[in-house]
């Protein structure tokens, strides 16, 4: 089992007291893809960030690859086992494409020089997302679709078991959206990764193995 969430809740005290996630319980198997859909502001992204250890729940437990993901230093867990794809790409705009893709490897202190495995893998990933000719281009000079392709390549860089995607096609036109959906789902399948995707896009949700609806803080399978 890749991920196991048990009774995850999240409430905010400010600006006014509100419980946006209530007793979220689900699990994710290896290679499985899962879509979380729901109206805006319902807490989908919050749930995804809790699953990605970027945010802490108010209560509940979370296990990723058998590790307790709510205690101790989670940075290593994020680096080795989780890949993120954000709606607004979150690339290092002033850095070249290849450096962006290699960033998780660099953070993980892997060798990224010539002849290194990480570099070969990053180049392979860029080829996979169709950006092999853009390695040295600065990220800020890419189009939205290209940026998201770089972000997908980056998410797969450290061979993580779990890919978390937050509205991956939210800022893209239809053509690019389809391409991104295909890449995300296809790559997850190809590399045998588990995928949790938060989306409004029903087409993307349809491509996933399972679908959940987040509504009133509760997660229900649909």
């Amino acid at each position, binding site marked *: 089992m890749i991920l196991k969430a048990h009774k995850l809740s999240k409430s905010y005290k400010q600006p006014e007291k509100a419980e946006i996630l209530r007793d979220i319980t689900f699990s994710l198997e290896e290679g499985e893809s899962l879509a979380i859909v729901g109206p805006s502001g319902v807490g989908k992204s919050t749930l995804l*960030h809790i699953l990605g250890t970027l945010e802490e729940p108010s209560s509940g437990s979370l296990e990723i690859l058998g590790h307790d993901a709510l205690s101790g230093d989670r940075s290593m867990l994020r680096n080795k086992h989780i890949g993120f794809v954000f709606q607004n790409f979150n690339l290092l705009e002033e850095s070249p494409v290849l450096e962006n893709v290699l960033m998780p490897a660099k953070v993980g202190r892997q060798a990224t020089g010539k002849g290194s495995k990480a570099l070969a893998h990053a180049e392979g990933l860029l080829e996979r997302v169709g950006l092999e000719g853009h390695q040295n281009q600065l990220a800020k000079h890419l189009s939205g679709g290209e940026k998201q392709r770089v972000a997908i390549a980056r998410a797969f860089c450290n061979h993580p078991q779990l890919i978390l995607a937050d509205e991956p096609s939210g800022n893209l036109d239809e053509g690019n959206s389809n391409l991104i959906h295909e890449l995300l789902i296809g790559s997850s399948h190809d590399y045998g990764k588990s995928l949790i995707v938060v989306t409004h896009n029903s087409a993307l949700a349809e491509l996933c193995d399972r679908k959940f609806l987040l509504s009133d803080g509760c997660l229900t399978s649909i």
Partner: protein
Amino acid sequence: MLFEFSVAKKYLVPKKKQLSMSLIALMSVGVISLVVWLILVFLSVTDGIEKNWLKKLTSFNAPIQITPTDAYYQSYYYQVDSISGDSDFSYKSIGEKAAATLTDPYSPDEDLALPPYWPEKEVDVDGSTKDFVKLAFASIQKTKLGLIAQDYEVSGALLKLRMIRSQGPSFAPQESHTQSYLTQASYINSFSGKNPHLHKLIDPPRIEDINHLFYLAELSPDGASADQPDRVVKGSVSEFHERLASLLENTTIKRVKSSGQKASYLASLLPENKSFEVLAYQKQGRISYLVFSEKERKESRYFEKGTLKRINDKLVYTSAEGKTTELGLAIPLFSETPLSMEARLKKPNLSQVMALRDLKLDVCFILQGHTLSGTIPWETIELEDADARTSFEKIPDQPPPWTYEVNGFAVLPKGHRAAAAVLLPKNFQTNGVKVGDTGYFSYNASTTSAIQEQRLPVQIAGFYDPGVMAIGARMILTEPAVVHTINTSSQTYSFDQNMMNGIQVWYSDLSQTSEIQTELTEAFKQEGILPYWKITPYYEYDFARDLLQQFQSDKYLFTLIGIIVLIVACSNIISLLVILVNDKKKEIAILSAMGASKKSIAWIFTLCGGIMGCLSTMIGTAAALLTIHNIDSVVHFLSLLQGHEAFNAVFYGKSLPDELSERALMFILIATPIISLLAGLVPALKACKVHPSKILRSE
């Protein structure tokens, strides 16, 4: 750390887009560099000055002085000489005690009975009288290798110098002399021939000293001890030869210049058929003399412009109107401006030299664009450049009349006619005293019925730098025998008896002072002579203590100020990095999402501070090195700006130290990066608090 370093480096490289940030970063680096430069230069200069002072302090006065205590002067060992016939019933100095064959000269059979109050004898294990002086010297030699010990004695007398100088109107045909007198109450210290540093303190004779010695060589020193000025007379030929031989043997003449304006020798040097512009002095229609003039001068009733040529051993003067006059080679010639000539002395046959003018020099120089060369007599000329030999490998057969050095030790020459050679502090130079001047020490000796003035003739053998001693400006060095003679008979000066006589101990490494003092104390204790001697290291000398403490507190104070200024300068880094953290929040959040730990993110900003600190240290150190190596130019520039000397030469020495202080460098190399790293910690903590989830969602 490599990852953090690469990110920190990326953040610090100036970028066009972040111009304001780059400017703030550059300013921060600039300010820290400036502070580093300032601290390094100031500390290096003060350190250097202190070192120079210490060197001066421990060159003339040894770094350790051993002086007799009251117990010594009250002991049987010291007192016994005053009632012993073998000691001429007079007290002995340490030097005499060291050289004496008898430790206890008292003979009950020949000398008067010891008075009842007489001090008890200190005896050795074998029952013999303990020899405090010999035991002290032996203990010093045993203590450590390389210790040099010599006794010293201080006395006082009135120094009276008679200064004979050559002077006369520039057109005067005969040289004339003036005499002036200089009287100075002085301390007299015995010349320490064993002092390994003394030769470095002695100035080599100046060119005016050498000139003066040549000038005095012809004159008789008679009258030096008379109160009234005498007519200056020529000395005997044998004396002249003796002095001249010593001077010629030890002087290499390189250049001479005309003294006064008379230059009769020019006639023989003028090349044939070359035309020279001259002024002819005419009186009653006849040319009395000719002047080679470089200056624009209006023609007057007496002076007429014209040209002079040498044709067939005759001088032909042509006036501006074209009138020619033939003149003999003997016509007096003058040069308004001094002539500077390259010169070599022709080896003379001394027996034929009766006066300086009998010496011949080969000269070569340029006058009005023409080269003049030939041989001229030593007349109306003076030395402009000459090498005086001051260093020898063994005592020379023909020693110079100035103080010289043999294998690293200074040697006082013999004065003429039994005059004692003396070394004066160099401030005497400003009173016009020159090497070779003669005079006498005057002191009062009491007899049973009267106090009589005694005189000891002296001759100046050089000048030395007395360094930092308070009474240095009045401390004259001369032969130990002279000092002792004055001490035993003089009643005029009464010093602190304990300071008048003692032993100086020299060694090379000043940092060993405390250790050597302890070892000497231990050795003296073992010999049982410690109560009779006081061992004083240089930092406890009365005249130096306050100054050394001042140096120390100045250093502490400036180091403290330095640290505060450095902290203020480095705090710039805090503000810069806080801005940087705000600017890079999104990147921090992305790195965090990629798995960068809080520690790693904190390191990135701490390193930013460290890199800026190191960069500033390097720039500041390089600038300080450059400044220190060109300190004289900097001082010159500052003096120009101020319109007067920026640094008083009396206090700071002729030039400021030009070496970077290791202590200051260590301080900067350690303090700056540490303070910068600490300054980077504040923004680092702020960076740690960046909440990636909020940032990544808010974008």
